[in-house]
């Protein structure tokens, strides 16, 4: 197996993005970047009416529509796409044929191909394509996420099968037939005339270890993907496509591949179809960079977005642009399987709010609870939610473990008040043995340190001891009191459940270890040999007790 490591930006750790999945992750990553720079952040439902001037889709459940504001202006965002991108540009980007027209007009190389409308029959398509140079690619005109893209079609026979699959089974009657370009597929993210990031996607794959079956290896690979903040929602699914693909290469799910043997499971490279994102930003040839920049330029009003390119790094001049994504997903490049994470959110905010470029922030230390912010929008009790301001500047945090009579809710509420009073964020939590844990963080180091003393000054508690410890994890904005299970919230119950399960496992382990130690002692010879001795000792002890009672 390849080494399991997670590459991420220091300020977008798994902890920070824990409640942001799939396309919500893109939105959250951009939003939190702006918010951390001191911009005002608001989240919306589509009913708010604030996005009528933009093209949006798949906006429910909420968490993809937001705005960032400085004192001067507000920009609205749908996922990674801001309002500088015009409606027309989005329309062009969502129609592959239209995209090609504009790209050609801008002198950007595209694969030759033909578009067929719903009315054209499969037979007619086959006839038209008989003169083409195979291999070819078949794809829907308006599919997204690589849905229904069939690549490397080698002859008319295969094309016939593909047509039935895409047009009938998947229900995309309007299709494009294109020349298949040799090379790998790259997603390049461009803002105006700058390439911010590029990544390559390998189709879903596994590497044999000589022990496990393909099915087991897929499960193992999925285990690995679950650790990656982005890939956890894009596991490898064993579907018809996978089965047919491995069968074509002579395997079944029960085959045991040799050690080190890499087996691809699909043709499709999409991350959402189980593909591996691999950062190639530094290796991208200049010529391909230029093609990507030209592609964004070719569509008026696009300004920034993802450019999908097929090409060979050894022959960069022959690369072609196959697709534009005005609302590109950036999760793959933020959390690649290999290489370095690239800060696209930072570049997007630089572009929309250049004046915030120099603002010094301690990005890695502050975030906000995304799912709680979205809850009113989901429940329809809110249609606009403004997140409280992020503290600006370097952030200091401390954890205080408070011992004594400290479990009263009144005390915890008092702590919260004091924290607000001193402009600190953090939380208070009941811990084991009747102690509580208080984490506070703020931009003023002294206030954070002085809080140790503050904790002792409440009339609602008798504090016997306050121990301090460093706290390096990020802290959420606001101050939470965690008293226990909030049974009315499903999310809280299930997260508590998971925690309890973890604890259970640990306890079981500890108990087992203890019992083993105990048994070892009991079994040890000297313990057994000294048994009579101990018995005598007990008799003495009992006698003593009897004596004492007599004296009374």
């Amino acid at each position, binding site marked *: 197996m390849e080494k399991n490591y997670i590459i991420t930006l220091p300020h977008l750790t798994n902890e920070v993005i824990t409640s942001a999945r799939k396309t919500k992750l893109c939105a959250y990553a951009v939003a939190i970047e702006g918010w951390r720079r001191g911009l005002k952040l608001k989240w919306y439902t589509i009913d708010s009416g604030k996005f009528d001037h933009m093209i949006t889709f798949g906006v429910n459940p909420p968490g993809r529509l937001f705005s960032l504001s400085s004192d001067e202006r507000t920009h609205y965002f749908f996922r990674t796409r801001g309002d500088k991108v015009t409606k027309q540009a989005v329309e062009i980007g969502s129609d592959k044929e239209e995209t090609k027209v504009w790209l050609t007009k801008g002198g950007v190389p595209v694969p030759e191909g033909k578009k067929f409308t719903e009315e054209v029959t499969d037979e007619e398509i086959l006839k038209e394509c008989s003169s083409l140079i195979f291999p070819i690619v078949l794809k829907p005109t308006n599919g997204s996420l690589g849905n229904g893209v069939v690549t490397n079609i080698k002859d008319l026979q295969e094309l016939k099968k593909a047509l039935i699959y895409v047009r009938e089974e998947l229900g995309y009657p309007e299709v494009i037939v294109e020349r298949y370009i040799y090379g790998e597929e790259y997603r390049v993210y461009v803002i105006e005339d700058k390439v911010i990031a590029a990544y390559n996607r390998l189709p879903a794959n596994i590497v044999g270890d000589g022990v496990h079956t393909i099915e087991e290896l897929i499960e193992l690979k999925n285990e690995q993907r679950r650790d990656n903040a982005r890939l956890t929602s894009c596991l490898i699914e064993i579907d018809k496509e996978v089965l047919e693909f491995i069968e074509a290469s002579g395997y079944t799910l029960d085959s045991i591949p040799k050690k080190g043997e890499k087996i691809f499971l699909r043709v499709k490279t999409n991350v959402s179809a189980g593909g591996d994102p691999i950062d190639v930003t530094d290796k991208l040839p200049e010529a391909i960079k230029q093609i990507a920049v030209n592609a964004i330029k070719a569509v008026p009003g696009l300004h920034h977005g993802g450019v999908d390119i097929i090409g060979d790094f050894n022959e960069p001049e022959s690369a072609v642009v196959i697709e534009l994504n005005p609302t590109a997903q950036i999760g793959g490049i933020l959390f690649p399987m290999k290489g370095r994470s690239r800060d696209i959110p930072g570049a997007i905010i630089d572009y929309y709010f250049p004046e915030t470029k120099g603002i010094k922030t301690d990005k890695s230390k502050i975030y906000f609870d995304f799912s709680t912010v979205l809850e009113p929008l989901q429940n*329809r009790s809110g249609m606009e939610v*403004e997140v409280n301001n992020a503290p600006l500047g370097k952030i200091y945090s401390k954890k205080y473990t408070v011992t004594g009579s400290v479990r009263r809710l009144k005390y915890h509420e008092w702590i919260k008040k004091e924290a607000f009073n001193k402009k600190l964020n953090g939380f208070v939590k009941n811990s084991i043995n009747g102690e509580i844990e208080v984490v506070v963080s703020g931009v003023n180091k002294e206030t954070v340190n002085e809080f140790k003393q503050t904790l002792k000054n409440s009339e609602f508690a008798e504090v016997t001891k306050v121990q301090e410890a460093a706290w390096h994890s990020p802290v959420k904005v606001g101050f939470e009191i965690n008293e226990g299970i909030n049974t009315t919230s499903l999310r809280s119950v299930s997260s508590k459940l998971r925690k309890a399960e973890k604890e259970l496992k640990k306890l079981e382990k500890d108990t087992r270890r203890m019992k083993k*130690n105990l048994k070892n002692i009991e079994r040890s010879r000297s313990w057994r040999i*000294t048994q009579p001795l101990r018995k005598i000792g007990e008799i003495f002890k009992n006698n003593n007790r009897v004596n004492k009672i007599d004296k009374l």
Partner: protein
Amino acid sequence: MGDGKKWLQHLENAVPKEAYGYKLCMYTIALEGWRRGLDLKFFNIYIENKVTVRFSLGSGDKEFKFAVSRGSIVTSEAIRICVDKTRTKDYLFKAGVSVPQGKNFTEETSDETIVNYSQTLGFPLVLKPSDGGMGKGVIPNIKNESEMKEALQYVRGDLNYKEVIVEQYVKGDDFRIYVVGDRVAGAVTRIPANILGNGKNTINELIKFKNIERKKNPYLYSRLIKKDRELLNFIKAAGYTLDSVPEEGKRIFLREKSNVSAGGDPVEITEELTPEIKNMAINAIKAVPGLVQGAVDMVVDKKNNTGVVLEINSKAQIAAHLYPEKGNAQDVPAAIIDYYFPETIDNQGKKLSNYYFDFKSILSPLSNGLMKEVKVPPAPKYNYPVKKYIISGKVQGVGYRKWLQKKALSLKINGYVKNLKNGKVVIFAAGRKENIHTFTDIINNQSPKKAKVRKVKESDGNKPVKVGFEIIQTEEKPGGKWISKENEMLRKELEQTQKKYENMKNSNSWRYTVPVRKVADLLKGRK
């Protein structure tokens, strides 16, 4: 209970637990405005470094912010006047509203000077702090010089309210009259904690029953009658103990204090007010420029139909008017909205009484400082009737509720779905006619894969629904309980094992045999 009380029908089942207690004012006024189609926003502000949740209501370009019951038409000068009791009295006096005679004394004045003044004014007197609130430090019915000295010691010394007011003590009933514009919207008085005998139960039991009753009152639910020393002494003085069984129909008071927080009952008396008293209250509000709404504290002499105004509270709580223990509730929230948004009088909120909004997901993140502002979506335009469905069959543990929620949300249906203990599922739903039609159709003819619907019973819901469509968790997942129990047991086992282990390690014979074991280890090693 024997007392007649009537609460507002349109608030029934529409006030969530999170809104109970002091948040009732905010919630009920916000709800009234929202139901009339106004734009509603909740936000937090930092006052004196404390996070406070406030709200605003608006329509078009007009927007008013509210602090508890007070809207932003009230000027800040009016608020300042009301906080200062002496200034309030000056304004009232100038406007011809009767007030008790008295005088304000600053910090520099000696107790002696105050006692001397007391004698010229004549007893009985009241001593109170100039800027105290909620009746704190108010000493009523001071009958002579020595009592006055004692009171001064207490208020100026112990409580540290240096600036005080001395005024005539007027006998009569304490009324709190809520005025909006030129209308009396509500009036309450309080009677001390009490129980009504039934010839069967002991005082102890009757207090318990009364507290059960109070828990059902959103305003009083946390203000129960406590059996403290004060109460025991009080009933003892009247010749009772907790075990006495009062005869039927006999009302026994349990304290002297009538404060609601001390177990007192709020009584709504608007319908009993005479026009003269009402006018006095209205004039009191008018006397302070820029005030337009507030609670007027009066002492009323019912026999002579006269009264005096003691003070005015611009940011008064209004919950007592909504949830009295006796008398008919008065719709103060409606009166406030009528005043601020007269154009909405015609679309009375009551007509939209089938809806309310989820307060909890708004309130806690705002007070935790996570969010700054939440804009609530507009209320549904029509008061669609609420439908109730009971589904029987194999419908629990098969993803039925989740599936149904999806369908409901896509049809913009409001309501909820909940598992019943008998294995059935209950659904409350309201929405556009055609959507409800589709929804009913889905319920009757479709189900998720694993579920099997046997029967669907349809009826009228007859209760308001929250906007949105939620899955109500009946109780904690059994798994959760099971696991925490398991954890508890394991922890105990671990502790015991640990103890045993420690004991063994520390036991004498173990310690004595250390050399023996070391030798044994050596031998083993050699092998």
